């Protein structure tokens, strides 16, 4: 009982607190560093002459354009979609081959994860909002197996498996991978895996699970009995993941919004960007220059400011 209340109550609350505070701290800390220069990475034609068609999304010059560019980036991983694979053949001949699997795997994972998170709202809200039911119905559209198989459960495991396999078997990816990269994948795979096992194989009393979740959400937690070890594993992995998130590369979920190469308009020459710490520097003035080269300037017949 001691252990279950630790895992079921103390650790989840601690993890949620760490997540909320830690994540906010990271965002605030980024926000405190200014963006001194407007440095968008431009990926399309600039807005210049009226008869040249400018790239509204790839070289945005309006706020709406920037929002649209960011939306494409965040919702559809636009930049990753560009991915190619360079190949050097005899000749030498360099080719750049289509390479969309990383994009597909990443997109599949992230969207599945989002859908799964939203689906889980059924455990945390009473009554369950209609949109949650709609998402579940769509996710379980094929009505295969009992309980109904969710497509996202399959997709997320396949996608995570691909992302892990890529790190292990692709020589370059393996070389750049840090232990923390595997840790993040392990936590995600653990989380999805325990969830899948619990739902489809070992089974769990979902009513008790929801009662427990609502207890947590209403600050009157009761450590449940009879939920089984898989439930605790699932809960613990989740706690570990969200507590780890603010300290890890997973903060990219917030950081992607702040990337100055993407979230700024390419209107540098039309609107001046102000650098809050712009400071005076030592420059070489015209007068110093004229004084140094006075005779030569005069000999060349160029005008002088001071004779």
């Amino acid at each position: 009982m001691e252990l279950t209340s630790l895992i079921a109550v103390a650790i989840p609350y601690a993890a949620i607190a760490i997540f909320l505070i830690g994540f906010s701290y990271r965002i605030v800390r980024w926000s405190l560093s200014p963006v001194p220069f407007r440095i968008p990475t431009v990926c399309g034609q600039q807005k210049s002459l009226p008869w040249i068609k400018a790239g509204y999304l790839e070289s945005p010059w309006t706020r709406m354009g920037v929002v649209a560019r960011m939306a494409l980036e965040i919702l559809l991983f636009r930049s990753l979609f560009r991915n190619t694979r360079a190949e050097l053949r005899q000749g030498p001949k360099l080719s750049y081959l289509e390479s969309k699997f990383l994009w597909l795997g990443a997109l599949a994972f992230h969207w599945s994860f989002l859908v799964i998170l939203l689906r889980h709202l059924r455990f945390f809200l009473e009554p369950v909002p209609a949109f949650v039911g709609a998402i579940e119905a769509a996710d379980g559209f094929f009505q295969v197996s009992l309980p109904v198989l969710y497509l996202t459960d399959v997709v997320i495991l396949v996608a995570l498996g691909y992302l892990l396999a890529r790190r292990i078997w692709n020589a370059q990816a393996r070389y750049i991978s840090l232990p923390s990269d595997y840790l993040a994948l392990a936590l995600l795979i653990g989380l999805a895996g325990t969830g899948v096992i619990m739902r489809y194989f070992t089974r769990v009393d979902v009513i008790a699970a929801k009662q427990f979740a609502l207890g947590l959400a209403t600050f009157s937690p009761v450590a449940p009995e009879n939920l089984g070890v898989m439930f605790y594993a699932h809960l613990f992995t989740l706690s570990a993941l969200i507590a780890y998130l603010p300290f890890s590369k997973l903060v990219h979920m917030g950081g992607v919004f702040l990337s100055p190469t993407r979230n700024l308009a390419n209107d540098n020459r039309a609107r001046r960007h102000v650098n809050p710490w712009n400071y005076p520097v030592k420059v070489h003035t015209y007068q110093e220059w004229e004084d140094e080269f006075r005779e030569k300037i005069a000999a060349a017949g160029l005008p002088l400011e001071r004779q």
Partner: protein
Amino acid sequence: MRDRGWIYSGLGLFLILVTYPFWQNLRAGVTSKGPDLRRPAEAKQCVMPVSYMRTSHMDLLASWRENAVRDGVRTFQSADGQTYNVSLSGTCITQCHASKEEFCDRCHNYASVSNYCWDCHVDPRQAHGSAR
């Protein structure tokens, strides 16, 4: 910096969304009491242990369906040797649980689990007044 307003608004929105279950439940006075079931009045023993039924009743019902429809086996013998007639409407609802709404639906709605049992089967109470 002019963009801090945007960043903090975005962060605030995110925090509101991720903590939605907390404040929504507190606001609506939700508790973890769980669904209010109408429990069987007389029967003291289900066809399988309660803990099994809570997590896996759908497996039992599915096997009943398979056996009845495919093999014509319309009886089920429980662990204590009692024999039951295989029928969702006739046995489960009529003999013990009395009401689909007050038994099945209470939990299914609570956990937002849709089922398709009743796409074919008839809730005996509703069938009562109909021509069938």
